């Protein structure tokens, strides 16, 4: 069974229809990159996967549970879906360590010691151990994003969602974040990545979705999509960004 199943997903903001009819399946351990012009609905699509956006129509099924069913406890589902944002969204009043420990201690009722231990291991993994007791305001963009990844991983999620994780970074910091993501992918994390980093999509992605106008216009393995796009719109987009 697939990890994420999306069936005829629709999303409107008032009269504006952003997602018109999205259907796809994402398997366990698969890394799916979502590309497309701005306004194509790719971020909205991602945000529907953990119901940060109310879903207007269709179904999103996460590991067998339909999150569009009002009876589904979305808080429970979200514990298994980590999310990384373009603007980091670290909690500025908490230290790096406290940022990472908050959800495990408050949501999973982990002991402070166990949470701290795990947080330190995650910080080693993202190369941020020496900043454990600093506040987000003291970190660079790339460092903030690596902490945000560690924070999401602290809940031991089955799925990680990335919403343009490198778009707000200075160019020299993009690499350090992509490196952490690449490592995650190699460890077998199921990942959905909305990105403008075509190099990353090509190298790390198992599959690439090209979105435009609220539809998935084309999807394929990266090599095929990048070297031999089938649709005119895909060709036009790729010719501009590659």
């Amino acid at each position, binding site marked *: 069974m697939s990890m994420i199943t999306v069936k005829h997903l629709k999303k409107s903001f008032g009269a504006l229809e952003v997602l018109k009819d999205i259907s796809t399946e994402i398997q366990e351990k698969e890394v799916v990159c979502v590309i497309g012009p701005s306004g194509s609905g790719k971020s909205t699509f991602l945000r529907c996967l953990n119901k940060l956006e109310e879903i207007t129509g269709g179904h999103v099924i996460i590991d067998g549970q339909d999150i569009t069913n009002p009876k589904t406890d979305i*808080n429970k589902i979200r*514990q298994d879906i980590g999310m990384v944002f373009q603007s980091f969204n670290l*909690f500025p*009043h908490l230290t790096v360590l406290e940022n990472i420990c908050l*959800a495990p201690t408050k*949501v999973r009722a982990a002991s402070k010691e166990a949470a701290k231990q795990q947080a330190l291991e995650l910080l080693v993994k993202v190369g941020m151990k020496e900043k454990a007791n600093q*506040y987000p305001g003291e970190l660079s963009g790339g460092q903030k994003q690596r902490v*945000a990844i560690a*924070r999401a991983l602290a809940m031991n999620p089955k799925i990680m969602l990335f919403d343009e994780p490198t778009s707000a970074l200075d160019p020299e910091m993009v690499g350090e974040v992509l490196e952490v993501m690449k490592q995650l992918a190699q460890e077998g994390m199921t990942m959905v990545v909305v990105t403008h980093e075509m190099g990353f999509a090509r190298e790390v992605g198992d599959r690439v979705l090209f979105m435009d106008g609220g539809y998935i216009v084309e999807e394929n393995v990266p090599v095929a999509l990048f070297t031999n796009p089938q649709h005119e719109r895909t060709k036009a987009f790729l010719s501009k960004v590659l």
Partner: protein
Amino acid sequence: MDIIKQALPYIQTGLKVTIFIFLVALILGLVVGLVMALLRLSHNKVLNAIAKIYVNAFRGTPILVQLFFFYYGVNSLGFLSMDKTTAGIVTVGLNAGAYFTEVIRAGIQSIDKGQTEAARSLGLTGMQNMRYVILPQAVRRMLPTFTNQAIISLKDTSLLSIIGITDLTQQGQVVIAATYEAFKIWLVIGIVYFIMIYLLSLLASYLERRFEVR
């Protein structure tokens, strides 16, 4: 100086009453303000309307009228009898609460939406998000306005002397009735209020430093 010495026991009594009423009213105002702010932010239209009516009613009428309403008005209905102190605390507390409601609401809304999204995406419930993520940040931003309202409420307590509560102002009147030393006594009473408010603002700036977001 003799007169001051004579007046001192009265001033002490009054000061105690003023501080007691102020503190209880402040706590009442904060609790009511927080609850009403959350109602104000809820998507439930009825709850929202309740909070709006409360805020508008207390902001739109003079506190003296509110005091008379609670002490004379509500008591005249006969189904409950508030003593002076209770009526005073309720008036000052609910009055402050209306302003606190708006301060807290604005403070909560000033926190970036991304904070809530990050918290909810980690599985925190709405209440956990409020408690651990939003309020700690919002409180820091609210502190200066909180201080302002607390100072206003402290000064408002002097109005309670009108219904005979033995607060600092009322005790001043008592001393003057006995000594006819209006100038000296009001000067002293004024200084006592000033010192209280000065200490309050010192406390506020200490708290502001403590809650500072790095």
